[in-house]
């Protein structure tokens, strides 16, 4: 039932005691970083509530103090870094000590174990490996749990299905949109995942999705799908996870101190009210973060859970309090896309970027009006420009866009809108 029963079912008062001890450690540790040194100089914490007197830490703070400003350990103690996508602006970089990686793996193992997967299961990881934490986080967790782990990585649906069949995969980690997309590949091969695979569990996450989509995935594959929440600033996946009740995600309060705030005023909101999730790391060494604004909107469910775990739950993520886009699981800011497109001479302001769903997967469409600055009369030059933009965006965002060259005056006039990135995905779902 439990990976670590004592901690998962800890009483509220014991949890608070534990959190206070860990918070002291975290603050002392954080003071070793250039960034927190000044901020936390006179900080005295005697109760958990005292944390409310500390300032928030934002993604911008991480960017402004790139690359080592928040590093609280000697760099030689770090064994890994993970980073957000792209190089526009400063990416957010997170460091891990060996201990951080071990604690993270244990946390992900706890999450997976909770859903019922065990050592004899065969786990196929279809998430991206690399700087993105989704792939490696689950990989380490699955190995810690003792499952046979197949690090297939993303894409190549036929190969995914081949592995699932050859090695009797029972559990997968998959983007919800890719799960739907992959089902159509099963159909093309005249296969039915219900009959032709041994799948029983899917861990879905890295992009916002509705309960309806989860149910659809469960029905198509004849499996249970569990929602996963995490962010690289905290470690990666493993921050919160669904138990077999599938009603909200237990957020591991022995690792993170949880607050919900009004994103506009910064005011702390009571349990049950929707707001922005703010997290303080309680166990991280290389890069402790205090009152980190996740920008994810959710609410806390504090009623006891039938599974017996005492850690409170958060509801599935409702959205963001900033303009961050999640494209096939990759976090991207509109500015990254804009700056990449605008670096091409002559493109100027004559462009529009659309994010939409195509065949259940996210796609970036870049529409560029062809004006004389970029037209010398030859097709080859246009084709070259098109390919250069595709390559540049691929390297910045990790997503291959579709570039469409259009005639002048064919794009709608921007009414003083600074941002030319249009997310059309929500409209389609409604």
């Amino acid at each position, binding site marked *: 039932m439990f990976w670590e029963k004592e901690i998962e079912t800890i009483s509220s008062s014991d949890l608070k005691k534990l959190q206070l001890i860990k918070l002291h450690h975290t603050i002392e540790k954080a003071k070793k970083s250039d960034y927190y040194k000044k901020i936390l100089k006179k900080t005295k914490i005697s109760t958990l509530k005292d944390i409310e007197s500390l300032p928030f830490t934002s993604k911008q703070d991480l960017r402004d103090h790139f690359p080592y400003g928040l590093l609280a350990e000697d760099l030689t103690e770090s064994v890994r870094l993970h980073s957000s996508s792209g190089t526009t602006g400063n990416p957010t970089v997170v460091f891990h000590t060996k201990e951080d990686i071990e604690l993270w793996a244990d946390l992900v193992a706890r999450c997976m174990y909770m859903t019922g997967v065990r050592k004899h299961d065969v786990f196929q990881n279809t998430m991206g490996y690399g700087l993105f934490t989704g792939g490696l986080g689950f990989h380490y967790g699955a190995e810690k749990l003792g499952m046979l782990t197949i690090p297939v990585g993303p894409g190549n649906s036929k190969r995914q299905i081949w592995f699932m069949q050859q090695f009797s995969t029972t559990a997968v980690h998959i983007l919800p949109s890719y799960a739907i997309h992959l089902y159509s590949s099963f159909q093309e091969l005249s296969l039915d995942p219900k009959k032709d695979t041994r799948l029983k569990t899917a861990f879905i996450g890295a992009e916002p999705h509705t309960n309806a989509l989860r149910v659809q995935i469960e029905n198509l594959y004849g499996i249970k799908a569990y929602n996963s929440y995490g962010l690289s600033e905290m470690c990666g996946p493993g921050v919160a996870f669904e138990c077999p009740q599938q009603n909200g995600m237990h957020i591991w309060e022995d690792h993170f101190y949880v607050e919900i705030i009004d994103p506009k005023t910064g005011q702390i909101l009571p349990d049950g009210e929707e707001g922005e999730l703010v997290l303080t790391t309680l166990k991280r060494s290389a890069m402790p973060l205090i009152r980190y604004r996740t920008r994810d909107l959710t609410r806390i469910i504090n009623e006891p859970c039938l599974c017996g775990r005492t850690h409170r739950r958060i509801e599935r993520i409702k959205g963001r309090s900033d303009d961050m886009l999640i494209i096939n699981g990759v976090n991207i800011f509109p500015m990254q896309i804009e700056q990449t497109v605008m670096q091409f001479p002559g493109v100027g302001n004559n462009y529009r970027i659309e994010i939409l769903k195509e065949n259940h997967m996210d796609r970036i469409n870049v529409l560029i009006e*062809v004006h004389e600055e970029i037209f010398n*009369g*030859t*097709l080859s030059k246009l084709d070259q420009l098109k390919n250069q933009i595709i390559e540049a965006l691929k390297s910045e965002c990790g997503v291959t866009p579709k570039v*469409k060259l*259009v*005639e002048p005056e064919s794009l709608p006039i921007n009414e003083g809108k600074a941002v030319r990135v249009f997310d059309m995905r929500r409209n389609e779902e409604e």
Partner: protein
Amino acid sequence: MADHLSIFLENKPGKLEKVTHVLADANINIHFISVASLGEFGVIKTIVDKPDIAHKALKEHHFTVSQKKILIAAIDDRPGNLHELLALFSENDINIEDCYGFPIKEQGKVGIVIEADAYPKIETVLASHHIHCIDLNEIT
């Protein structure tokens, strides 16, 4: 001497007709027209009697137009002659962007339209080999 007008167009029904409509309204005579497409978009190339006026009219109608100088070399209509002309370019390292030909019946010659970037080198090469370049009005 003549000009190519290249027009950027999306590859959609009715697009070409919009171009000919503008040219017809401006009383422009089209001598040659060709379409090259890359799927979703393409480039129309045309030789017209009044390129400057045509260019202006198209721009006024928000088309993206590029005007480029071309040469029309008049060569004898007999086997191997085009090859000799092209060999000349090749020897002199001249790259051809676009090239096509048409018969000039009454003279027993062929006009070879050449779009290249290597001016005036290309003209010097042609002149030194006594290849005559014709004006549009010589043939229309």
